[in-house]
């Protein structure tokens, strides 16, 4: 331990240690970097994209990559590169907000189910089981169909679809953590339930929740792309990778780049989060270190 | 000629934290029909020594020295030669019968495998022979056991199955690594009787690895005492028990729980300290840090193995039978 470290609190020290271990894994770092890149792309789209996503130039329709159009143009003469960049907004929004929504609802439910048990636990578990009888994407598709096609509804649908498993995970962690000695000590000292859940149980779940986030964000990104591909998500003219792919199908022979670039973006965005997630899982739980 | 001849065997492990010398220059011999006991605390290298003979150690192990079986060089043998010896001429019985038996295979399958592999038996022949073997090791209703799985058997029975499996091809040598340690005391006696029986009836030589001297007294002909990867004492069993020379042996004998000899209760005598895990074999007596007889010499020179009594070798600068001092601490 360096002098600098000795001065830090145990939690800060732990964070430093994690950071060091993370840096030792080049793949995870690469994932982090690329994921951040996409986030930045989403935030700063207007600054990065040379053209606005709707700007058509029919004279240059379906042209190949050039100095003016980095990835070429689509059938309406729109710059593919700009559209790919702007699409990051829809995907990141869906990915991040759906996951946040899911966690905001699922974590409290899971905590309650796992901590109080009693009659509420079986009820919550059965409901979760029923929802889990439907695969993730089916739920998302179903909900999106009911709610009507739009990015907002797609995000909500994806968030709801992610909740059951998150409830299960949170419940499982809570069940395990409530048996820990420090929790029992807090109970014996008369701490209120709220304090116990908030100060003892929840903070010790952050690792698991972080890993879950890296699982559900990419799934939601793909989910949004899928819904948009089916016409149930983002509606044109708003650009989305899924919409771009769907529109690219008729031109697959003439201009494969219409298929390649948007799909590549989805792939890289998903891959980056998965790499990051794998790395995080490795450092947070030595048992799963492969 | 000795059945097993091990000479100056050393085993070194390359681990993440550096190299560890698990066995350092051990020599021993096993004669036909003999029961040789290798004794020492956990971590002293006795299991590693045995496993190195058949190359059953992980790839991080480097084995040097010489070991031969029936005149054949074991260390230089190639993999197929070794595989022909394993289970056929030299068999192993491990400590934990629950985990050492495959939970997904029936008794018949596991024993039958050996018969089919080495003796080329057909399914029916293997079946019959398996029943014979189960009977031999004292398992009641052997035919019914054929289709059972390990989890359906008691600990003692599982160990008997392991022994049956080891005896399947009538090996010349049976190496039993802590065969009774994981079993209830009441069951242990049964297994020991069985091993004794095996030696008598089948003439199999046995290498018995254990940390329990009580077990040794029961069944061994000859004893090798190991400490921290080195052999520190060797003698015929009665000689060792009557006249232990090395302070470690003396300590081990003193640690055997015994009823008080009329003069009130005795405290359980323990040897203070722990067995070291050595990265490099140090040029001194490895027992010195815990030894009541240690002096400057023991701390700076490695004691060679010398014959201090007829057919009784000790590696110590201060051999002798003085008992362990009561309440001695390092």
């Amino acid at each position, binding site marked *: 331990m360096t002098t600098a470290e000795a001065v830090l609190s145990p939690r800060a020290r732990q964070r430093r240690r994690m950071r060091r271990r993370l840096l030792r894994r080049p793949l995870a770092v690469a994932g982090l970097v690329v994921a951040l890149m996409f986030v930045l792309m989403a935030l700063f789209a207007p600054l990065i994209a040379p053209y606005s996503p709707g700007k058509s130039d029919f004279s240059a329709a379906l042209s190949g990559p050039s100095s003016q159009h980095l990835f070429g143009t689509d059938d309406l003469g729109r710059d593919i590169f700009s559209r790919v960049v702007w699409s990051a907004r829809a995907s990141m929004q869906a990915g991040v907000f759906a996951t946040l929504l899911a966690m905001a609802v699922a974590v409290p439910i899971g905590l309650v189910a796992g901590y109080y048990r009693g009659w509420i636990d079986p009820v919550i578990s059965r409901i979760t089981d029923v929802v889990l009888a439907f695969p993730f994407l089916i739920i998302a598709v*179903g909900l999106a169909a009911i709610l009507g096609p739009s990015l907002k509804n797609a995000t909500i649908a994806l968030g709801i679809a992610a909740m059951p498993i998150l409830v299960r995970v949170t419940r499982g962690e809570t069940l395990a953590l409530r048996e820990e000695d420090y929790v029992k000590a807090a109970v014996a000292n008369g701490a209120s339930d709220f304090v116990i859940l908030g100060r003892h149980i929840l903070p010790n779940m952050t690792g698991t929740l972080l890993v879950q986030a890296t699982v559900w964000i990419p799934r939601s990104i793909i989910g949004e792309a899928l819904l948009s591909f089916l*016409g149930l998500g983002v509606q044109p003219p708003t650009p989305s990778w899924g919409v771009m792919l769907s529109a690219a*199908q008729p031109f697959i022979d003439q201009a494969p780049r219409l298929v390649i670039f948007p799909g590549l973006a989805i792939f890289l965005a998903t891959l980056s989060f998965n790499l990051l997630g794998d790395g995080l899982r490795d450092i947070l739980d030595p048992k799963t270190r*492969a | 000629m000795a059945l097993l001849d091990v000479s100056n065997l050393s085993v070194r492990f390359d681990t993440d934290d550096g190299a560890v010398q698990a066995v350092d220059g051990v020599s021993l011999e096993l004669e036909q029909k003999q029961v040789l006991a290798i004794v020492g605390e956990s971590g002293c290298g006795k299991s590693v020594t045995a496993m190195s003979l058949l190359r059953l150690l992980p790839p991080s192990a480097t084995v040097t020295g010489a070991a031969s079986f029936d005149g054949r060089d074991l260390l230089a043998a190639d993999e197929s030669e070794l595989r*022909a010896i394993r289970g056929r001429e030299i068999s192993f019985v*491990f400590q934990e019968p629950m985990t050492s038996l495959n*939970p997904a295979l029936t008794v018949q399958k596991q024993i039958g495998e050996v018969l089919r*592999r080495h003796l080329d038996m057909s399914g029916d022949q293997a079946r019959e022979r398996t029943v014979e073997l189960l009977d031999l090791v004292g398992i009641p209703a052997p035919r019914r056991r054929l289709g059972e799985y390990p989890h*359906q058997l008691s600990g003692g029975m599982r160990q008997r199955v392991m022994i049956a499996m080891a005896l399947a091809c009538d090996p010349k040598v049976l190496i039993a690594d802590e065969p009774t340690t994981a079993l209830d005391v009441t069951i242990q006696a049964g297994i020991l009787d069985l091993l004794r029986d095996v030696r008598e009836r089948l003439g199999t030589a046995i290498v018995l690895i254990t940390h329990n001297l009580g077990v040794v007294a029961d069944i061994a002909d000859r004893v090798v005492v190991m400490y921290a990867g080195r052999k520190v004492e060797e003698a015929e069993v009665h000689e060792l028990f009557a006249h232990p020379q090395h302070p470690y042996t003396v300590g081990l004998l003193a640690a055997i729980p015994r009823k008080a000899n009329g003069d009130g209760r005795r405290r359980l005598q323990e040897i203070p300290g722990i067995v070291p895990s050595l990265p490099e074999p140090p040029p001194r007596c490895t027992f010195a840090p815990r030894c009541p007889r240690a002096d400057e010499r023991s701390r700076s020179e490695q004691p060679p193995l010398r014959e201090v009594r007829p057919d009784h070798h000790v590696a110590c600068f201060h051999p002798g039978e003085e008992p362990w001092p009561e309440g001695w601490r390092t």
Partner: protein
Amino acid sequence: MRSFLLRRTGAALIVIFLASVVVFLGLQALPGSPALTLAGEDRSPQAIAEIVKKFGLDDPLPVQYFNWLGHALQGDFGVSHRTGLSVGETIMDRIPITLELAVLSIIVALVLGIPAGVISAYKRGSLPDHASGLLALVGLSIPHFWLGLLLILLFAVRLRVLPASGYVPFTEDPIENLRRMAMPAFVLGTGVSAVVMRQMRSSMLDSLTADYVRTARAKGLSERSVIVGHAMRNSMLTVVTVVGLEFGALISGAVITEQIFVIPGFGRLTIEAVNQRDYALIQGVVFVAAVGYVVVNLLVDVTYSYLNPRIRVSGGSV
């Protein structure tokens, strides 16, 4: 084991029951009154009144529900207002096609995933291990609809070796059937193969370091016997469970894949139903999907308990 099976079947039935409630209520939750949505095109007051009478829409909800459930259990989901065909029949026509796709995909997944997992575990830390790991991650991350389009681009458009779309029943022409199923099965299979590979690798790492493998080697068995007969034997259990769990992902994937490759399966039916707001069809489809999923999970449990001797044969002398 029998009591275990009974309990699991009971649980499955409860879940199906509750799922049916959800599906039924789903219709009620849609914008517009149920009568309107069922009416489809003809929305005159008389037509609506007829529908209300015909479907008993003015009965109390529980009555409606049990009515519907009763019919559903007999396979009668009513008639699609769009095609006029029985929903139940339409579904039954399409299911075998998707089942074939699912089975082929699972075969692909196992053929790719199991050897990769075994070799990775056996040669842990080596280049093949890291390469497989990375490949698995790629397989998990690649959007299957994109992969499908890329394969069409490569094999159908550029190389012209496989047809881009369409379906030919197996009974009619097995070769053509397989040619058309090849790409979709591969697309769906890669995702699952990644999961299978990871699981197999993890299980094998456990098995290979287990005591019984040491015993197997000490018995003089060939390395192949040790790996396949002992280590893999014990690892296959978890793989079976994983495949069952991935079935849901397969169904979801089939939805898009059938769309892209124009295969008239159950998945494609779902899209058609949703896009055309054919609510009778949607209800039928979602219900059958849930039942199928639950049944598959049940089968996985049964298979697992059959394969695991500890559950299959419990007791005996202890």
